[in-house]
């Protein structure tokens, strides 16, 4: 059914349809609408679930960890400082191989305090072992949640999945959404069953102390699973297509790539703006294209190389920055494409939209213009020079 709805409400609606048994969350802008909606749905008996109102995000993540360990499908959502406070538990959920699904309404991190969108928060847990998916639109956010549970609970995976949606832009934006029906979701996502749980009839110890004789193999197995997930994500996406009669998600998505010579690479809602920019450039006869990275972890190196190997220039557009280094996506792409050797396209890195700074068509054309000039690895675009005083000369 198609509805014109707010992104947060769409997420709440689809999470409800995924039938989690335990939900725990702590309020933080711009995640709040999602969990408020879920609380109300439970209060109205739209579905049965335990909603645990915790005293912090650290505990929200701990509650879903405990609940998931009893074999019950669980859900949480957060943003920014909340994700940073959770970080310790986020790593543990992955290490314990618990298939929790979490929505991150991406937001800048302090200081200065800023509630607006960028993608800095998720980068703090980039290396945690979670599958990290990025949505471009509200529709894609909805679809990714259904796929996230299916993927996380796949016996070959058993890892948590985070669906990243840009704060405000997607959480508070409105869009016409094709909302899957309950029966369709139930068919695609059967009830979660696992023997890997805290069960008094089959007592297991979860969360051992592993000394140097054992630790490395256990971590390696997570890495191996991520490799495997690169095959499973396309599988899940094609199953999704069969079940819902439309295409959504996967590892990456290309736009006008066939003959593209200049390719933008980005994640999340900025891809919408880039599509428009590509259209404009194409109208002017420029061979521009876009590569959207949906699965950031696991990082789909082979798929990306295949998509970019004929490009002349690649512009990586990051909405976060590893301060003192480069944009995280730029770093990953550079290392992936370096295996092309002399055929490696010219790579430029751009940092845009931090703390909610507008990203317009102008911003993207500026990226395009810069591509033909000197290679740049971490150029901040849209800076207000008048605020920088002495910093930049």
């Amino acid at each position: 059914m198609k509805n014109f709805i707010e992104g947060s409400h769409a997420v709440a609606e689809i999470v409800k349809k995924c039938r989690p048994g335990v939900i725990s969350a702590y309020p933080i802008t711009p995640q709040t609408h999602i969990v408020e909606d879920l609380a109300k749905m439970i209060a109205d008996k739209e579905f049965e679930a335990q909603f645990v109102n915790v005293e912090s995000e650290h505990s929200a993540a701990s509650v879903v960890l405990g609940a998931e360990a009893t074999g019950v499908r669980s859900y949480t959502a957060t943003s920014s400082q909340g994700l940073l406070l959770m970080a310790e538990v986020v790593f543990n959920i992955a290490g314990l191989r618990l298939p929790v699904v979490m929505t991150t309404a991406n937001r800048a991190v302090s200081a200065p305090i800023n509630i607006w969108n960028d993608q800095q928060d998720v980068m703090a847990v980039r290396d945690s072992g979670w599958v990290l998916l990025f949505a471009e639109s509200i529709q894609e956010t909805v679809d990714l949640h259904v796929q996230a549970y299916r993927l996380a609970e796949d016996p070959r995976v058993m890892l948590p999945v985070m669906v990243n949606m840009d704060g405000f832009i997607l959480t508070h934006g409105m869009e016409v959404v094709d909302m899957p029906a309950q029966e369709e979701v139930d068919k695609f996502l059967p009830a979660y069953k696992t023997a890997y749980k805290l069960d008094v009839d089959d007592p297991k110890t979860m969360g051992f102390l592993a000394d140097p004789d054992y630790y490395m193999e256990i971590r390696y197995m997570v890495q191996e699973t991520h490799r495997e997930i690169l095959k499973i994500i396309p599988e899940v996406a094609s199953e999704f297509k069969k079940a819902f009669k439309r295409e959504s998600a996967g590892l990456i998505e290309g736009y006008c790539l066939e003959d593209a010579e200049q390719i933008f690479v980005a994640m999340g809602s900025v891809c919408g703006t880039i599509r428009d920019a590509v259209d404009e450039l194409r109208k002017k006869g420029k061979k521009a294209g876009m590569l959207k990275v949906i699965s950031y972890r696991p990082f789909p190196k082979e798929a990306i190389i295949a998509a970019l190997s004929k490009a002349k220039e690649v512009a990586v557009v990051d909405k976060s920055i590893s301060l003192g280094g480069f944009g995280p996506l730029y770093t990953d792409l550079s290392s992936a494409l370096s295996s092309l050797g002399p055929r490696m396209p010219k790579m430029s890195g751009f940092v845009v939209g931090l703390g909610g700074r507008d990203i317009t068509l102008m911003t993207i054309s500026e990226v395009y213009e810069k591509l033909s000039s000197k290679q740049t690895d971490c150029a901040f675009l849209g800076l207000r020079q008048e605020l920088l005083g002495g910093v930049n000369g």
Partner: protein
Amino acid sequence: MVETLFKPGHTACAGCGQAIGARLVIDTAGKNTIIANNTGCLEVFSTKYPESSWGVPWIHSLFENCAAVASGIEAGLRFLGKKDSINIIAQAGDGGTADIGLQAISGMFERGHDVLYVCYDNEAYMNTGIQRSGLTPTLTDTTTSPSGTGSEGNPRPKKPMPEIAAAHGIPYVATASVGYPQDVQKKVKKALSIKGPKYLQIHVPCPLGWRHEPGLTFDVAKLAVETGLYPIFEYENGQMIPRKIAKIKPVEEYLKVQGRFRHLIKNPEAIKKVQAIADANIQKYNLKAEA
């Protein structure tokens, strides 16, 4: 060998009070129990991969969050309709309880989860090498509250954790000591018979950290109680019921068998300070048995 849910073969030190306490707790709770365990000595010595001492489902997540993990387990079991037949125990050391874990415990109490929280109080961060915690007693020598020419050791009193728990209005709070195993068993049984959040704090000597003979664990535990330094009591629905002491002993008897108090022995003023703490406990908790 006696049937136990806490198998020997773990790597606890000789005379470890916490190992005795943990075994008493789980064997009293029985096999229909799930445990969430904080980081600390207990977790480290009982679950060295691939071996585990635990005969019940057991999970360790982090240092400060067993109360929240247990809350999640409880919510999961509730969703499955299985809560009524299964006990949930969250357990931790004194540091994991009174310091870094306090917020999560408060949340668990306030939300009313049906969980028994057990704090094994060995009065310092033992797993990391005997650093001071909020439950380290006044004038204790630890590695981060060392005695020296300018210090008599830990300057602050024990955080009143049982009262903090009781202030949440939870139905059952108690202290106990491994020196009195039957009392521990009785309290675990009683706690598990009550719905809602429960708090049990068990005094567990640590021969390594307290620097006493490993063979003296029970004696040291008993002396703490008999001197009034470790008051044993219950708060049932807010009502305080003490365990009376038949013959109160001077604190010196307790202090002199432990290296962590050695610096006090030739310091009558310091001993007086410790005696004053015991006296205050005796009065506050009405510990003295009627003649």
